[in-house]
């Protein structure tokens, strides 16, 4: 069942120098219970895409267009077309979000219990005691030891990993069908990263929820995602299931990303490769493929087509599409 279907989403931020086109006409969907990873480097539009879906972008500063049909507990709604006050009822209830930095994402002045109880109370007309029981249950589920007594603790009394667990407990308190995890492990050290990811996997099974995992870490993607959208300069440049993407990357940018990940199963005699150059300015995107100026395989395309024409996202295999002239029309 398709849980969320995003069509032609664009987000622009007007500035004195021109409109910053952070997200350009992207479409994707996610099924119930599946994990979709969105990868790309900083500024590629991953976070903005999801903040737009959550209605967390300031409507005074962001121009948003497109549709996002979402199956909520009350039926189908358009996340992008709905009244902001109406959307607030679904936020934290049907869709939850956890953020990159657990150190600053919890309110320093309120106990973690109060913050989780509040998240439950706002969507459920129940006695606060019921919400408290629920909060303790969730804290236990995410692996906080002795949750009944820790509920009165304040965020600064927890480590980064523990705070992210608290954030996850808060996000899941209303049993959402979609969890957006925006770089949930970036601010944590490696061993804690692995714990948080496996916790998310366990909870996903238990809560039967879909996860949109935003990350720039392809190692995280390999272990956690079912499908991957690769974003570059506000566009989806490749979309595939995780095995296809790692085995047969169709877009030189994806190839470049994969090559820049250190791997234990390869000889490490050479230096890690990096993609030369910088992403384009989001105010004036190039006419052609936005990756063309950095692309190492640009000579494989006749003429200078890459610099003048924007390739479409075309199918390369089952559920595998890429935005590149190379290999276009060739189905693996």
């Amino acid at each position, binding site marked *: 069942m398709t849980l969320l279907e995003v069509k032609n989403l664009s987000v622009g931020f007007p500035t004195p120098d021109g409109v910053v086109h952070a997200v350009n006409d992207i479409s994707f969907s996610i099924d119930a219970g599946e994990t979709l990873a969105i990868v790309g480097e900083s500024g590629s539009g991953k976070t903005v895409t999801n903040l737009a879906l*959550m209605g*967390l972008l300031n409507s005074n500063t962001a121009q948003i267009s497109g549709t996002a049909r979402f199956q909520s507990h009350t039926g189908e709604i358009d996340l992008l077309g709905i009244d902001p*006050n109406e959307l*607030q*009822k*679904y*936020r*934290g*209830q049907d869709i*939850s*979000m956890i*953020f990159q*930095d657990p150190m*600053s*994402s*919890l*309110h*320093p*002045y*309120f*106990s973690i219990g109060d913050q989780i109880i*509040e*998240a439950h109370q*706002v*969507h459920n007309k129940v006695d606060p005691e019921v919400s408290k029981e629920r909060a303790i249950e969730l804290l236990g589920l995410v692996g906080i030891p002795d949750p009944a007594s820790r509920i009165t603790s*304040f965020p*600064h009394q927890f480590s980064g990993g523990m705070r992210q667990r608290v*954030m996850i407990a*808060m996000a899941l308190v209303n049993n959402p069908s979609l969890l957006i995890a925006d770089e949930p492990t970036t601010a944590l050290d490696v061993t804690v990263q692995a714990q948080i990811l496996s916790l998310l996997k366990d909870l996903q099974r238990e809560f039967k929820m879909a996860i949109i995992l935003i990350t720039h870490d392809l190692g995280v993607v390999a272990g956690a995602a079912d499908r991957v959208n690769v974003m570059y300069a506000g566009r989806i440049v490749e979309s595939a299931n995780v095995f296809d993407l790692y085995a047969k990357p169709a877009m030189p940018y994806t190839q470049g990303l994969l090559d820049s990940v250190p791997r234990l199963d390869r000889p490490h005699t050479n230096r890690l490769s990096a993609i030369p150059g910088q992403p384009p300015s989001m105010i004036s995107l190039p006419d052609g493929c936005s990756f063309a100026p950095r692309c190492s395989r640009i000579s494989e395309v006749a003429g200078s087509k890459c610099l003048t024409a924007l390739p479409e996202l075309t199918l390369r295999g089952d559920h595998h599409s890429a935005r590149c002239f190379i290999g276009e029309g060739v189905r693996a």
Partner: protein
Amino acid sequence: MLSYISRRLGVTFLILLGVSFTVYVIFAFLPFDPAALTCGKNCNDPGIIEANRRRLGYDLPFLTQYWVFIKGLFIGRTYGEGAALINCPAPSLGYSFQEHSCVTTLISEALPVTLSLAIGALVLWIVVGVGLGVLAARYRGKFVDSASTIFVLIGTSLPTFLTGLMLLVFVVIKWHILPFPAGNYTPFLEDPYEWAQILFLPWITLAFAYAALYTRFVRSAVIETSNEDYIRTARAKGLPESEVVGKHTLRAALAPIITMAGLDFAGLLGGAILTESVFNLPGLGRLAIGAVVEYDLPIIVATTILAAAIVVVMNLIVDILYAFIDPRVRIA
């Protein structure tokens, strides 16, 4: 917490001792003979001067004088003997020969006036400053924001004596909105209506300048806090905007205001000299300024030490309050 408070109280006592000693030293080395001042500006009779010197204890060595002063604070002090015996009970801050009164008595008459003035003004400027600051932050760039900017500019640039005089001229003399303040301060317990009527314009005068400062401060604090990650979290939970701002943002934004308000209030308690002078209120400020004009050293010493004591004690109160507001500063 209790041990922290008692430790701080101990330190506060030492600070006050230091302050009083410093003030005493400064006035001891002023080029005035306090004994000569007791018999008026044009008095040259060495017999009277020497007699007064003995009566007031100015013949004692400097350190002994200071010791007698400190002792007087705790057990009271007597001047002269026989029929001319003057007794200033504890806490004695000295005896003013010009006023023919114990300094403690003078201060206990003036303090309620200043206290009434300061408390009323504090309430007024907090309500206006916080209210307007929050509105300006919420509707940044809109009409309310521009209007508050004008208010801030006028408030911070108009000196209080000018505001006070203008209020007197227009509200009382020209437009007859309020009756002329008779200048007789009436204690609250005697006649609350009269009390409020006399203090109304002084409150506005004093609050005007502070409200402007606080508006600016609250506005920037609210805007800054709005950009915090935990405010985004509050919104992502699905909290209504009123709670995001009224609870999560204000709680964090207003914490520093407590410190500011505490210290400003303490400063005022030392005497709102200009406002008291313009409105002819017999408060501490007028007592001090009158004493300076008359070279009435005992009163100057006492009001200076009192003002310092109020600031030091208020600092302690603010620190303790802060620990209750911000769990991160909770002290062992």
